[in-house]
């Protein structure tokens, strides 16, 4: 029983990263009604640039790496927007889907070229620290993951719900035409959305690599898939949905792993996706059932 609770707890701690990635996907979808397939790959890319630039500064501490990844994430977010969205006519729905898939593959190639395909050691935040509560224990680095993710999410929610910029972003998402007629610049809001989600992605990427202990090209694929699953389960465009769905997927993933082993784990996560698509296609917080 304690093993089970332990699995759920670890999963939820790690799930906050999925929440961050899900927020990135869902925010772009909410504002532009487009999927940015390159998001998770760009996040890992940012984590790599963060690692390289921190070692170039001879500062290999995890926190410096995090800071560099954050900045790199913002820059990459801007580049992805520029190349895959701004320069490509948005009128064609599939054009940006293809351009971001292309960017996903390109980012993959770039990372695997730069790392020559080998996993890179990634600094841990709290190595070999364990917090114990009776029978239960928490890995220190997972607690850091949890803490950083919660702070980032809270900052984002404050931005979206309490600041003028955030309200303008949500206004553009809800009524793009009326927003323009109220003087909001849609292109500016779109750019900022990509930079902000890029920053979140950079942090999430660095957190994952740090929790896993290494940065490898093998991370981008699963992370893209998990991010999309979280986005769908949370409901496309819903930030609170993505947060809860990230925790849900993280928790359940670890439970599946606990009972069925790591090889079967992702199969059940996929089944969870289909269960949602069939029974709650609008996501966790959808009002009523319905596909519209």
């Amino acid at each position, binding site marked *: 029983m304690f093993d089970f609770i332990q699995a759920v707890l670890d999963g939820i701690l790690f799930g906050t990263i999925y929440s961050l990635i899900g927020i990135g996907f869902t925010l772009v979808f909410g504002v532009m009604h487009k999927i940015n397939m390159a998001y998770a790959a760009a996040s890992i890319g940012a984590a790599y640039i963060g690692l390289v630039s921190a070692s170039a500064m001879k500062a290999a501490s995890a926190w410096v790496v995090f800071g560099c990844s954050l900045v790199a994430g913002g820059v990459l977010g801007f580049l992805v927007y520029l190349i895959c969205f701004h320069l490509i006519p948005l009128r064609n729905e599939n054009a940006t889907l293809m351009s971001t898939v292309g960017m996903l593959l390109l980012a993959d190639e770039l990372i695997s070229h730069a790392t020559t395909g080998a996993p890179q050691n990634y600094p841990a935040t709290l190595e070999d620290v364990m917090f114990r509560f009776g029978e239960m224990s928490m890995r220190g680095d997972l607690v850091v993951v949890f803490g950083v993710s919660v702070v980032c999410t809270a900052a984002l929610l404050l931005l979206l719900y309490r600041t003028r910029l955030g*309200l303008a972003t949500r206004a553009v998402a809800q*009524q793009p035409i009326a927003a323009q007629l109220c003087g909001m610049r849609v292109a500016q809001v779109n750019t900022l959305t990509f930079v902000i989600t890029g920053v979140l992605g950079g942090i999430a990427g660095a957190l994952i690599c740090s929790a896993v202990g290494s940065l490898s090209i093998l991370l981008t694929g699963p992370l893209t898939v998990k991010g999309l699953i979280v986005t769908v389960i949370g409901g496309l465009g819903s930030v609170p949905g993505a947060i809860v769905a990230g925790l849900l997927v993280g928790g359940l993933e670890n439970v599946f792993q606990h009972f069925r082993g790591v090889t079967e784990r992702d199969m059940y996560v996929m089944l969870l996706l289909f269960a949602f698509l069939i029974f709650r296609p609008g996501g966790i917080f959808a009002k009523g059932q319905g596909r519209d």
Partner: protein
Amino acid sequence: MLELERVSRHFGGVRAVDGLDLKVRDGEIVGLIGPNGSGKSTTVNLVTGLFSLTSGQIRFRGQDIAPLPTHMRLQGGIARTFQNIRLFGQLTVWQNLWVAQNSPADRAKRGFFSRWLGGQSGVRDEIVSLLEFSGLAHKQDELASNLAFGEQRRLELARAMATKPKLLLLDEPAAGMNSEEIGQLRERILKLRERGLTILLVEHVMELVMGVTDRIAVLNFGQKIAEGTPAEIQKDAAVRKAYLGGDAAAAEGGS
């Protein structure tokens, strides 16, 4: 204030607006009426930049605005409401007005931080007075999507006002209103004129159009078929024909 000169907009073979000339002078309330599909809404969309012109010219305060994107037209002082209400549904009433305060004067007042991050001082009084004007003061913290239909229409008008326009385009503001609400709307429109606004009113509800406008232009098949004071328009034979159909007008004329 606003001049349309031989303005046309074609969608494929359909001439939604075809060679329209229209002038709205400072401080005037001009009505734009016509049967369904006569090009009224297209005209509003052309002025606000949602559609581009096929040919012709639109001048606002002497400046050709055809090349300007929508958000720039707003900064020049054009605002509108929509036939099908387009509020920011998940924002509160207060927030709907707050995010709309984007006039050059308002922008200049804001420093970097308050521009992006908040700081409601200075704009608060204006929002309060807009809320009072539209009778929504008690609803300021409601989500816009939770408002009743009439309240949503009032909020949309208040939001347009929050952009500090000089020219206000109202696209069927009375649609779906009962006659008491239409009376209130008329009062409100007249008050806006007292504040110095110029208004272009697109409307089906004759009760409102005849009651508030100085001048009315009538469209049919994208062309202007009549223009004059409300009294003149009511008597115009071409207008009757467009509204009642050829036979009805003939029958009426014959009796």
